[in-house]
C-alpha cells in the first residue's frame, strides 16, 4: 500500500533543484491519490538479450512527483550507462511508501532519513550504502527554537510551556529533540512530555513547526537545523535556538534485503563517482547534495540506540546475530 505523504522530516533537505518551484497544494493533491509513479526507463546500448533484471529505484518526492520524474532522468541515464543495466524508477510521496516498497521488493533502492532507515532495516532487512553530504557535512543537528523576545533562554524555562515536535516518525523532528530534554534531565522518556510541557503538538512539517514558534502559537519547537532557512531574513532575526542535539547522520541511500552485493556495490561506486569529475552537476538532481560518503549500519549506531531507548525499535535481545528480517511474519510484524 502506498500511503499518502506525511510531512515527517522530509522538508529539511534542499529541494531537488528542478527548474520550477513546486507547490504544496499540488503535492497534497497528488498525495491524496496515493501516488506512486512508475516512470519510463532508459536503455542505452544494452543488448536486449543479455540485459540483467532492471534496477528499481524509488525516489522520495519532497515537492512535485511529476517534476522529480523529469529532474532525475539525467541521473537515471547516467546510472544505466555506468551499470550497463536498465533502471526503472518510481516516485513516492512519503517515507512509509519507500520503506513499504523496499519491504515488498517492488523497489531495490530508496532514499530516506536515519530513523526510517532503521525501521526499514529492522523490519525489512534493508541496508544503507551511502550517506548524503550537505554544506560539507554528513551530519546535521536538531535544535530547540524559541522566539528571541520570549525570555526563554534554557530548556528548564520550557516547563509548563507549549511545545511543537514535527512528526512522530522523525529523527530531527522528534527523536533527537526528545533526547535533548532527556539529556538535560528534564524528562526520562517520551511518555513524560505531557507532564513537562503544558501541551505538546506534532506540527506536521518543519515549516509549520518553526512558524508556530515565530507566530507565538507555541513557545518552542524541536526541529532540524535547516528549518531556520525556511524563514525569511527578517523573520530569522526573531527566532533563536537554545539547544542542539547530538549530530544526526544525514539521509541515506538504502538497498533492499537480498539485492545482490555486486549490484549494490556498482550503484554505490556510480553515485560516489559523482563527487568529482564531469558528472558532478548531476548531484543537483539528487536533492542537491554536495556529495556522498560510504556508510554502513554502524553509521547509524547512535540513532539506533536512541530509537531503541525511545521505543521505536525493540530493546536488543540476547542473540543480536540473528537476522532481523527473519523475525517478521508475512505482514511485516514482529513474531
Amino acid at each position: 500500500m502506498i500511503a499518502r505523504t506525511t510531512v515527517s522530516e522530509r522538508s529539511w533537505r534542499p529541494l531537488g533543484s528542478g527548474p520550477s518551484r513546486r507547490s504544496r497544494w499540488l503535492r497534497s493533491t497528488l498525495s491524496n491519490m496515493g501516488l506512486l509513479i512508475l516512470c519510463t526507463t532508459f536503455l542505452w546500448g544494452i543488448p536486449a538479450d543479455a540485459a540483467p533484471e532492471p534496477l528499481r529505484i524509488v525516489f522520495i518526492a519532497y515537492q512535485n512527483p511529476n517534476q522529480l520524474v523529469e529532474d532525475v532522468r539525467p541521473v537515471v541515464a547516467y546510472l544505466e550507462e555506468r551499470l550497463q543495466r536498465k533502471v526503472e524508477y518510481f516516485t513516492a510521496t512519503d517515507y512509509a511508501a519507500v520503506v513499504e516498497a523496499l519491504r515488498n521488493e517492488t523497489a531495490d533502492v530508496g532514499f530516506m532519513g536515519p530513523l526510517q532507515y532503521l525501521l526499514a532495516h529492522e523490519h525489512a532487512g534493508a541496508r544503507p550504502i551511502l550517506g548524503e553530504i550537505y554544506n560539507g557535512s554528513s551530519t546535521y543537528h536538531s535544535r530547540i527554537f524559541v522566539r528571541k523576545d520570549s525570555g526563554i533562554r534554557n530548556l528548564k524555562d520550557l516547563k509548563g510551556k507549549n511545545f511543537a515536535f514535527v512528526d512522530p516518525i522523525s529523527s530531527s523532528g522528534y527523536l533527537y529533540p526528545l533526547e535533548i530534554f532527556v539529556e538535560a534531565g528534564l524528562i526520562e522518556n517520551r511518555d513524560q512530555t505531557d507532564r513537562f510541557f503544558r501541551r505538546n503538538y506534532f506540527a506536521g512539517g518543519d515549516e509549520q513547526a518553526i512558524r508556530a514558534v515565530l507566530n507565538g502559537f507555541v513557545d518552542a519547537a524541536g526541529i532540524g537545523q535547516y528549518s531556520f532557512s525556511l524563514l525569511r531574513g527578517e523573520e530569522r532575526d526573531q527566532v533563536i535556538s537554545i539547544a542542539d542535539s547530538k549530530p544526526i547522520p544525514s539521509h541515506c541511500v538504502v538497498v533492499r534485503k537480498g539485492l545482490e552485493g555486486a549490484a549494490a556495490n556498482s550503484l554505490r561506486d556510480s553515485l560516489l563517482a559523482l563527487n568529482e569529475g564531469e558528472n558532478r552537476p548531476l548531484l543537483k538532481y539528487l536533492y542537491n547534495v554536495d556529495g556522498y560518503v560510504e556508510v554502513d549500519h554502524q553509521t547509524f549506531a547512535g540513532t539506533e540506540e536512541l530509537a531503541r531507548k525511545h521505543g521505536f525499535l525493540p530493546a536488543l535481545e540476547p542473540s543480536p546475530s540473528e537476522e532481523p528480517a527473519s523475525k517478521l511474519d508475512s505482514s511485516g510484524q514482529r513474531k
Partner: protein
Amino acid sequence: MPLSQHKLDPVTKQSPRSSRGGLGALLISALLVSVLVLLDLPLNAHIVPPEDLHPAAESYRRLNFLLNLRPVPWLEVGRDLKVIDGALAQVVEQKGKVTGLTVPEVNGLDLDSETAWLLEPQESQQAEGREVPGIREQQLLAQRTFEIATRKVSRALVLELETAAASISDHSTALGHLETARQLWAAFEPTLRSTDRAGFQEAGRHWLEMTSALGSPGILGIGATPPKQQEFEHNARRLGEYLNANFGASFQAPSGTLAPLPAHSPTFDRDAALPAILPPGAEINKQLPRPRQILNMSERGVDERQTPLIALGDMAFDSPMIFGEPARALGLSCNSCHNKSITNPKFFLPGLSSREGGLDVSNSFFAPHANNGHFDPVDIPDLRGLRFTAPYGRNGRFESLREFTRNVIVNEFNGAEPDPVLLDGLVAYMMEFDFLPNPALRPDGRLHTGASESTRRGEEIFYRPFEQMADRSCATCHVPSDHFLDRKRHDIGSVVGAAESSRDGAMDTPTLLSSRHTAPYFHDGSLPTLRSVTDWFNERYDLGLSEVDLGDLTAYLEVIGDGVDPYEDTLHTLESELEEFDFFLSAYEFLASRGKSDLIDTTLVTIAFEIRAHKWDVQDARLLPVLDRLAELMDEAYEANHQGESEMVADRIAEYRRLYQENVEVLR
C-alpha cells in the same frame, strides 16, 4: 581527501561539526535553489523567493490587491475569481464524495450581472454597447466582488475542515483535506496577523491541535497513533465558527481599503494598520546575471571618497526611505527598477504591469493622489548615459532630470518633498551613468573599419531616407553623432489606445546605445527583440525591405547597441553591498558640515536597513554578529543624531568604519 575516500565513523564517535547554515529545505527557498542551480551559480545572491500558496489563496490575495486599484483591472480580477470558483467547486465535489451527501448551496456567493459583465473581455463589452462604469461605481462593484470572493474562500476552507473531520478514520485523506484547508487559510493570514493578533494565535493553535489529533499511521505500523476525533472536530468547529462569523454570508467589505477584516472577532483591532504587501506574482528581485554599471568617475579612476555628493545620491538611489508608503514599507527604491542604472527586465506587479520590465507609474497604489485614472504602463527605461538623453520620461514630459526625479519621489512613490541637497546628490549620481563602451563605433557614431559586410549594409539602410517616412531615415531621429537620439518626441504610431485627437502618441526618441541589453523595446515594451523592431517599421511604413535587408539592419542595430562586458562575473554579493554602504557613509562629513541632520538620518537608516536585508547572504554564519553590530551602530548613530549628540554620531560612525575595515576581508 576526495569525498569518495571518506568513510564515516559512527556518529556517536564524531565530534559535532559546525554547519555554515546555507540552504536547507526547502519549500520557501525552492525557487532560489532552482534558479541558481540552473544558472550554476553559488547560493549567495540576494533573491527573495515568493510565497508558496494554494492557487485559490494566491488568487484571493492578488484579487484583493487588484480590487483596490483604480481603475480596477477587471479582466485580471475575473481570472482570479475563476480560480477561486474552481477551488470551491472541487472542494464541494470532494466533500460530496467523502460524505456521500449533497453539499447544500448557500446564499451570497453569486455575482450580479453588472459585475459579471465587467469581467468579460473588452470586445464583448463593446459589442454590447455598454460603457465601463465610472470610478465611484467601480468602487461599489469592487466591494461586492470582494465580499463574494471572501465568502467563497472562507466557505471552501470550512468545507475542507468538515471533510477532513468526516474522513478522519482514513489518515491519508483527512491529512490531505487538512493541508488544503491550511493552505486556504493563507488567503487571510497577513491581514489577521496584523489586525487580530489574539484571534490569529488562537487559530494557529487550532491548526496544531487538529494536526496532532489526526494521529499517524507510522511506518510499517511503527509509531502509529490513533486519531482523536472529538478533539479534531472541536478545533475544526471553533475555527469554522471564527470564519463563518467574520467571512461568512454576512461578511461586508470595508468601505475603505478592501481587506478581509475580522470585524466580528472580539479581539479585532480596528486601529491596526494593514500590512503593506505585494500581490502574488509580483517580482521585485534584482535581475541575474548582474548587469555591469559604469560610472564615469570610476572609469576616470576617481577616489570615490572624494565625491560625497555622489555618495549621497548613490545612497538615495538605493533608499526606500526617500519614498512614502507603501513603497517604503515594501523596500522599493529607484534601484528596484533601475538596478545600478540598468533596467530590471523582470520587475512585475500584477495590475500595474502589462509585461515584465514595465510599470504604470501613475497608479492608485503607490501614490493615490497622483493617479491619472487609467492604465498606462511603460517599459522601465535603462538609465545608462542618462546625462545625454534628455528629455525624461517615455513621453519626454520633463526637460530637467532634477524635475523628473522630484516627480518620481513625490508623485509616483508618495515621498515627502525632497531636500534640495538630496536632489543634487541624486542628479550628480545619475549623471555618472555611462553607456557600455562599444569599440565598434567611432566617436561620430559610424562603424569602425572591420565591421562585417552585413552590418555595413545595415548601416546603409539605417541612413537611407524612405519616402514612406516623409523622406526621413532611421538616422534622422536616432542621430548617430549624437548618441543615436534627437531629443524630440515623435508619434510613429506605436501607441495603442491613445485618446483620439490627443497627442498621446508622441514619445521621446530613445537612444540605441547599449540597447542590445535593454530588451524589450518601445515605450511599452511591446516588442521583444531588435528584429521585431525592424519588422515593425517595415510593416508600419511599408518600407519594402527584404529578409536580407531586415537581417542586415538588425545586425547593425545589434552592433551599435552592444557593449563590452555587459554583465558582472559576480553576483549581488555581500561584500559589494558592504563596500557600497561604506561609500554611502562617506557623505556623512559633508552632510554634517551643511547641518543636514535629516539627510544624515536617511543615510543611517538606509544603511541599517540594507545591512539587515543582506546579512543572511553571509557565507560564514559566525560573522552574523559582526553584521548585527554594524546595523546596531547605525541605529545608535541615528538615535544620537535625533538627540542632537553630534559627537556620539561621529563616534558611532567611526566605530562602524573601524569594525568594517577589521572584517572587510572576511565579510563575504
